């Protein structure tokens, strides 16, 4: 199953692209497992996801915790803590 990944702020800069579509790797069930898998995809991903504890995630525009299931997700976003307002 394919899923759209979106990156924002310094996560986007480190990964080097704003978004991409990937095939969900088998055996990856949660947001934190997906971050660990992404970190293994190359230097830029390793840099972006070197400290997953500071990265926030959203599935289909809703904030989720790292243990959230990615099953059925259409779009998963990764970004630093928000600094708007």
């Amino acid at each position: 199953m394919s899923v759209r990944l979106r990156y924002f702020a310094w996560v986007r800069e480190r990964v080097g692209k704003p978004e991409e579509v990937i095939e969900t790797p088998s055996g990856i069930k949660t947001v934190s497992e997906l971050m660990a898998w992404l970190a293994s995809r190359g230097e830029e991903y390793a840099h972006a996801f070197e400290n997953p504890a500071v990265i926030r995630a959203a599935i289909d525009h809703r904030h989720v915790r790292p243990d959230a299931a990615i099953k059925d997700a259409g779009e998963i976003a990764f970004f630093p803590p928000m600094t708007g307002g």
Partner: protein
Amino acid sequence: MKATVRLQREPFDAAAEAAKLTRGRSDIGAVVSFTGICRGVEDGEPIAALTLEHYPGMAEGEIERHVIEAGKRWPLLGVTVIHRHGRIAPGEDIVLVVTASSHREAAFAAAEFLMDYLKTHAPFWKQVEKAGGKTWIDAKATDDTAAERWKASHRHEAAE
């Protein structure tokens, strides 16, 4: 409750937005208007500008959910939230929250609630331009603490 949420690059007119909420009605007894403005100094150093990145779609949705939540908590008669994105120079407005109610308590509390949640939950990120280059602003623990205090009776189901 009349609710307006807008994300835009262009500047806004805070006074005109507040006037829109009260025009033609006499049940509103209190309007609170908060404007967040770009400071010219960050961490003791002058800045050239801020650039605000946002997550289109999610940003509107997240703000709208919090406006609805505010409407459940307080007897509001109107809410307007406008958040700018793109490059913003020192002295320019960034964000506007206007709340209207019959009495001031609800208007004050709802405006503060909305700002606290905007800062910690709305997907916006500020990058600051200084002489030495561009850097992303770190989230402040004090903003998390400010948002936390509204949680005692919080019904919002999103992860926090």
